[in-house]
């Protein structure tokens, strides 16, 4: 309603730059060596110097993550609907899913590699396995907590369970669906990277290990920066869609 000032409009960028400056200052003042914690300038130099390599690896990581993330949205939503709308599925699946998700996916990568060979297969699967859970949980919670008063509005029309989910469950859980997407996309990137770290010849995960093994921490951090940028872009994408689709919920 009121006009935003510069700070408000560019809060993220301002904070980001402030953090960079502080980080650089700490590194410079305390003479932190680059093998302990590289400074933004060192990272920037590496980002620039190896930009083609980093871009190539980033692209691999990006599309792999997107495929895995796409699967995880589908499966997460489906499982969420199942668990959120059936008491018995809730009781049966939820604890087992929780147990499964507490297992470090890195431990499964070797097994996936044995089945799918090295490359995109295990990475996609890891990204999926690690990231569907938050989606499932939020959708299930949103569905399980639908106000019966709203449900009755449809039930009185003779609506099927599916109608109720589509017309009430989905729109009502949209804000929390977006919330879970934000969590899931970060996990999907982690999953891809972790898988690439242990079985791949390309991708940021490979770059991390490769740079790490020759103790080139600034290059490894440049790879991390690239992941961060990709995740942030996805966040901004979600934020745009979210603003359009859930304005009604953010009306305060």
């Amino acid at each position: 309603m009121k006009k935003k000032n510069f700070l408000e409009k560019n809060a993220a960028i301002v904070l980001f730059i402030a953090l960079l400056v502080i980080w650089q200052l700490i590194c410079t003042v305390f003479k932190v060596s680059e093998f302990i914690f590289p400074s933004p300038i060192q990272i920037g130099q590496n980002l620039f110097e190896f930009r083609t390599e980093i871009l190539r690896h980033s692209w691999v990581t990006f599309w792999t993550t997107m495929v895995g993330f796409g699967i995880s949205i589908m499966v997460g939503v489906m499982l969420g609907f199942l668990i959120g709308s059936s008491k018995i599925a809730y009781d049966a699946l939820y604890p087992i899913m929780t147990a499964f998700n507490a297992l470090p996916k890195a431990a499964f990568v070797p097994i996936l590699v044995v089945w799918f060979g090295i490359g995109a297969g295990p990475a996609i699967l890891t990204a999926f396995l690690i990231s569907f859970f938050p989606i499932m949980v939020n959708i299930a919670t949103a569905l399980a907590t639908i106000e019966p008063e709203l449900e009755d509005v449809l039930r009185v029309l003779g609506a099927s369970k599916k109608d109720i989910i589509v017309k009430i469950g989905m729109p009502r859980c949209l804000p929390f669906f977006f919330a879970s997407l934000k969590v899931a996309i970060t996990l999907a990137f982690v999953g891809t990277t972790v898988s690439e770290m242990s079985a791949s010849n390309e991708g940021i995960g490979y770059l991390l290990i490769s740079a790490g093994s020759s103790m080139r921490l600034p290059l490894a951090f440049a790879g991390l920066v690239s992941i961060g940028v990709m995740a942030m872009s996805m966040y901004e994408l979600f934020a745009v869609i979210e603003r359009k689709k859930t304005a009604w919920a953010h009306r305060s």
Partner: protein
Amino acid sequence: QTAIKFQLDWRFEGPSAFFLEPAAKGYFKQVGLDVSIDAGNGSGNAVNRVASGSYDIGFADMAALMEFHGNNPDAPNKPVAVMMVYNNTPASVITIKGSNVKKISDLTGKKLGAPVFDAGRRSFQLFQDANKLGPVNWISMDPALRETMLVKGDLDAITGFGFTSILNLEARGIKAEDIIAFPFAQNGVKLYGNAIIVSPKLIKENPAAIKAFLEAFTKGAKEVIANPDDSIQYVKQKDGIINVDLEKRRLRLAIKDAVVTPDAKAEGFGTLSLPRLALMASQVSDIYKTKTRVNPDFVWDGSFLPLASLKTVLPK
């Protein structure tokens, strides 16, 4: 009692008995040191942790130490090797009967698997040059995956430490006689293996502690080499799940391949030959493409060695 934080290169497996036995038997205590030993996850990390001051003493591959020196010329606290333990690198190229590698020269153009940080893979160029091999194709993977993929037939050969990969292959049901190993050391690559490294801060502030540490370590090492099977109990104390028989074999293999080798006998336990070190420094500078060339004088300091005790370590 001086508190010393010690960082292993790897987990509590057979070879860590070299440190766990003197600790368990109180040899460090006797020389006034309170040594705490932590498991590690690679030589690179061990070097880093000593360099950063988190640890006082560590156990790490000489090549990793050299690479650190070469890449961090301005680092204020570069670790220094003070005692050589694996006189020969345990790195080997390994394959199994049935793969299409029968002899070393078959390796040209083949699919080799190893993690990017594997010492054998990183120094493979030396092996190539020494054996006049053409280029090979590398596949990257987790350490524990390479043997599985070799057995599955996805790879033609792997690089790795003999005492790890041979045992892992056996665990997958490959008979000992079907495993073919080409150790670097016996095929023209005379890199040094793991050494005890210390932080220069410790050298400056408490050189006596280093001397004491090496003295106690040497006493333990002698007993380990003399009776490796007995030593595994000290590893078992640290990590209850180890397979004792397996670790006994691993320790014996490590001693045979890396510690009690012809080169070690020639140079003496604990110490090294400066020309060989200089050659290695130049090789590492080349193949690891370090930022600056490695100066062998900064990497090694033999002045803390308990020379008298050392002579008695290796069996005649």
